[in-house]
């Protein structure tokens, strides 16, 4: 047996990895490695452990086998594949090439720059020692012993870091306001109530590297002189909650939370508050109300939380990703961080790249990268050879950017200029099969259901917005509906109490702006150009092409198709429920959809 210094086997076990069977794969590796007796031959370190999400969940279970400096990554690993990897790769030093990740995995990573996600996928998120081994808590130790709070604030200000939760408020400035706000009791809150459909950045960070968030909070608390912290996290993230709680316990055991931290005079501890699934609780004043035990309803601003927040005390609220950036900025310096990104949008941003993309997943890119690089290089282009239609960013508060603007830089200013937002980092890729009216309807339905009900424009206005969109997609749109949508949207945007309502019309306005012709086709021609809106579709059978094979007849759940052998089949429009089963099963392309 060969002599090796180090062997490390890392099994992807974020929520995606666990769902794909990561737990079983890890168990299989542990068993096989133990049975092989290989550990005895390793000089320094041999470990098999879980890691958080490394981004490309679509290829889970991903496994790294690192022998000394040589790392091989395997994809789609199942427990029964483990013995062969252990035998051939570990014992015989012949990696199993056919199971290795392909070129697209490298392409996926090539243009990414990982700061927040740097150690997700590398370290065991449930072991504080793994975090300490890579320099974890050193930034906090240094700050608490050698820095003045003002110096921390200056450092963060100079790094150019802006809030990653959506609004993009400069983090250093927020801390400065928090520091200056008078009061002997202050709070720092980590907002982990990630709620945008298709967004999972914060979940991945907490699942993959919870200590980085805790350390970031600790540094932030020191900067603003807060001794109490809260993490407000969704109860629907069980794994993240579990790992966060475990990390907090471990940090407390090591004396990284509690009294007189790192030998200084500074006290700080963190409580976890579980959110009960209200999207609006991501809005900071609603979040505060929820922690206080009230119904999650936004309060008017001003006063801003930084002056009157939790229990009326000065409170700084930062997003998970914002806080996870902090330790790295302190360790490597503000200049290093500010060297990434654009003039006004510094650093990197994590996006959840989803939709009709070949390689969906979690990515971290420098601000200012073009949409094209994200979609074509990192994402590998559109799946199934279809044409890109638009990229939706910013979730229900964001907008759709048409394919013609693919060379747009992704940063706060550029996205705002075209009517969308960076938001918390949702990025949904849409192809020619996506109907933009339907898309707008989906997001408005979401915000309408999640409206807290406090103010009229949001509670009733989004309902009326939704009803107009619904009738358009049903072919009942009226000639002046586009203007009606625009007027109503303008009112909701100007009159709503909080960000949820103020941004709710964005998906409607941006799709009208760039895809007006699709609205017009629905309203005037009663056609859905993307063939999505069911009510507008008509299925029929081309008698010349029909071979009367009977497969559509059997597939039809509504018994709407009639026909006999050698007689072309027919669809009874009155019975047709427009499910598309006939269209899908016909081998001769004789079923037409209009």
């Amino acid at each position, binding site marked *: 047996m060969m002599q090796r210094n180090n062997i490390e086997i890392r099994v992807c076990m974020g929520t995606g990895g666990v769902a794909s069977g990561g737990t079983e794969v890890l168990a299989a590796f542990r068993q096989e490695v133990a049975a092989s007796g290989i550990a005895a031959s390793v000089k320094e370190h041999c470990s098999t452990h879980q890691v958080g999400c490394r981004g490309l969940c679509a290829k889970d279970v991903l496994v790294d086998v690192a022998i000394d400096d040589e790392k091989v990554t395997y994809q789609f690993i199942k427990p029964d594949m483990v013995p062969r990897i252990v035998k051939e790769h570990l014992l015989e030093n012949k990696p199993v090439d056919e199971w290795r990740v392909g070129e697209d995995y490298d392409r996926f990573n090539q243009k990414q720059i990982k700061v927040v996600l740097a150690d997700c996928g590398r370290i065991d998120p449930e072991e504080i020692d793994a975090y300490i081994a890579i320099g974890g808590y050193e930034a906090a130790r240094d700050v608490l012993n050698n820095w003045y709070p003002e110096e921390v604030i200056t450092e963060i200000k100079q790094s150019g870091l802006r809030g990653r939760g959506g609004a993009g408020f400069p983090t250093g400035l927020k801390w400065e306001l928090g520091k200056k706000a008078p009061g002997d009791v202050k709070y720092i809150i980590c907002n982990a109530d990630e709620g945008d459909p298709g967004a999972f950045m914060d979940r991945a960070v907490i699942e993959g590297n919870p200590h980085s968030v805790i350390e970031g909070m600790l540094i932030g608390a020191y900067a603003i002189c807060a001794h109490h912290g809260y993490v407000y996290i969704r109860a629907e993230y069980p794994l993240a909650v579990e790992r966060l709680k475990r990390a907090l316990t471990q940090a407390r055991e090591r004396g990284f939370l509690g009294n007189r931290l790192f030998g200084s005079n500074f006290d700080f501890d963190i409580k976890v508050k579980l959110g009960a699934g209200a999207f609006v609780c991501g809005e900071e004043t609603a979040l505060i109300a929820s922690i206080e035990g009230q*119904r999650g309803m936004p309060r008017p601003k001003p006063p801003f939380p930084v002056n009157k927040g939790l229990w009326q005390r000065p409170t700084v609220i930062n997003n998970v990703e914002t806080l996870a950036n902090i330790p790295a900025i302190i360790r490597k310096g503000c200049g290093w961080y500010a060297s990434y990104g654009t003039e006004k949008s510094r650093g990197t941003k994590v996006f959840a790249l989803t939709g009709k993309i070949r390689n969906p997943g979690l990515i971290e890119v420098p601000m200012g990268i073009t949409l094209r690089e994200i979609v074509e290089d990192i994402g590998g282009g559109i799946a199934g050879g279809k044409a890109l239609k638009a990229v939706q960013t910013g979730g229900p508060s964001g907008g759709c950017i048409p394919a013609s603007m693919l060379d747009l830089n992704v940063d706060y200013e550029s996205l705002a200029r075209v009517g969308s937002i960076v938001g918390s980092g949702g990025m949904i890729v849409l192809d020619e099969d996506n109907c933009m009216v339907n898309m707008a309807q989906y997001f408005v339905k979401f915000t309408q259901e999640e409206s807290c009900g406090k103010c009229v*424009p949001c*509670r*009733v206005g989004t309902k009326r917005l939704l009803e107009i969109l619904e009738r358009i997609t049903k072919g009942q749109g009226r000639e002046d509906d586009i203007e009606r949508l625009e007027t109503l949207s303008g009112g909701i945007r100007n*009159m709503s109490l909080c960000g949820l309502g103020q941004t709710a019309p964005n998906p409607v306005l941006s799709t009208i702006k760039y895809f007006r012709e699709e609205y017009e086709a629905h309203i005037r021609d009663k056609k859905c150009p993307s063939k999505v809106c069911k009510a507008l579709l008509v299925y029929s059978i081309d008698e010349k092409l029909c071979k009367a094979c009977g497969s559509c007849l059997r597939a039809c759940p509504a018994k709407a198709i009639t026909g006999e052998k050698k007689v072309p089949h027919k669809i009874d429009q009155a019975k047709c429920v427009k499910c598309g089963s006939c269209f899908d099963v016909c081998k001769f392309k004789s079923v037409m959809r209009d």
Partner: protein
Amino acid sequence: MVSLTINNKKVSVPEDLTILEAASRNGIKVPTLCHHPQLTPFGGCRLCVVSVKGMPKPVASCTTTVSEGMEVTTSTPEIEDLRKLVLELILSDHPNDCMTCEATGSCALQELAYAYGVRGEAYPGERRVYAKRDGNPFIERDMEKCILCGRCVKVCDEVQGVEALDFTYRGFRSKICPSYEDDLDCEFCGQCVSVCPTGALTGKQWARRGRYEGVREVDTTCPYCGTGCTLTTHVKGNEIVRVSSKPWTPNEGWLCVKGRFGYKYVSSPDRLTKPLIRRASGEFEETSWTAALEYTAAWFKKIREKHSADAIGGLSSARCTNEENYLFQKFMRAGVGTNNVDHCARL
């Protein structure tokens, strides 16, 4: 003090005032549905938006405090359009059955719809439909008329300290309910009824008794306890059809269940309106106050002569004022000559 201009008028107000309060103190009216001067600001109806120079969007005047040099305009064509839109939206989800609504004539929504000429037809759509059910004897809750202004929730919490109501559900289905959507089971003080700007909350016993035609308002003092709240009885013919109270009274307009709903005894046939003396036959005989008091005094004297003054005791009532209670104990001690005097509140 802070100086600002409202509609180009220079005003000077205390610095913790909201724009709405500053405007109202200077005689400038800003429409609102959710604001109530005795409750904390809510900011839900958005009708009170005003334009402030330098602010990118209209601001809610009920929740924005004044600041030095602020330039406020309470009415511009854009602001009025936005207000109209909000009213359109509220009325699009309202029964609009003013003909039979108990609140007609004293409904803030109706007044604003009238002032703005809004009928609620611009954005037609689904309306909330709720089955009527509420097993309590006092408060009618017609939630279809509720505009979710939150006043009832606030008054119940901030004034009464009972918290019987709160917001439930989300989005269009948002609704104000007691816990678990049970029937209302509270003190029934009716403060919620008194602050409701629409016909969503009304008194059950007021129904169909008369709205404003031929109804007179008569201010009087509540006879139930020594607090002596000022009541306004709404009288039609010679019958009280409902009771309210005005905010500038010593009780600031707030009442309890007895004062607000317990007025039926006034016209009860069982009510004693004249003194009666039971004669030897056992029959009650109507008499005058002088005769009745003389009769009672004579008996007290007889008892005192035969059994001493300590054979007599006096029990006073919480319905009396302090002064009346003072007089009563003085009467017992100095007049009757005993210290046997007590008060029902000690029982």
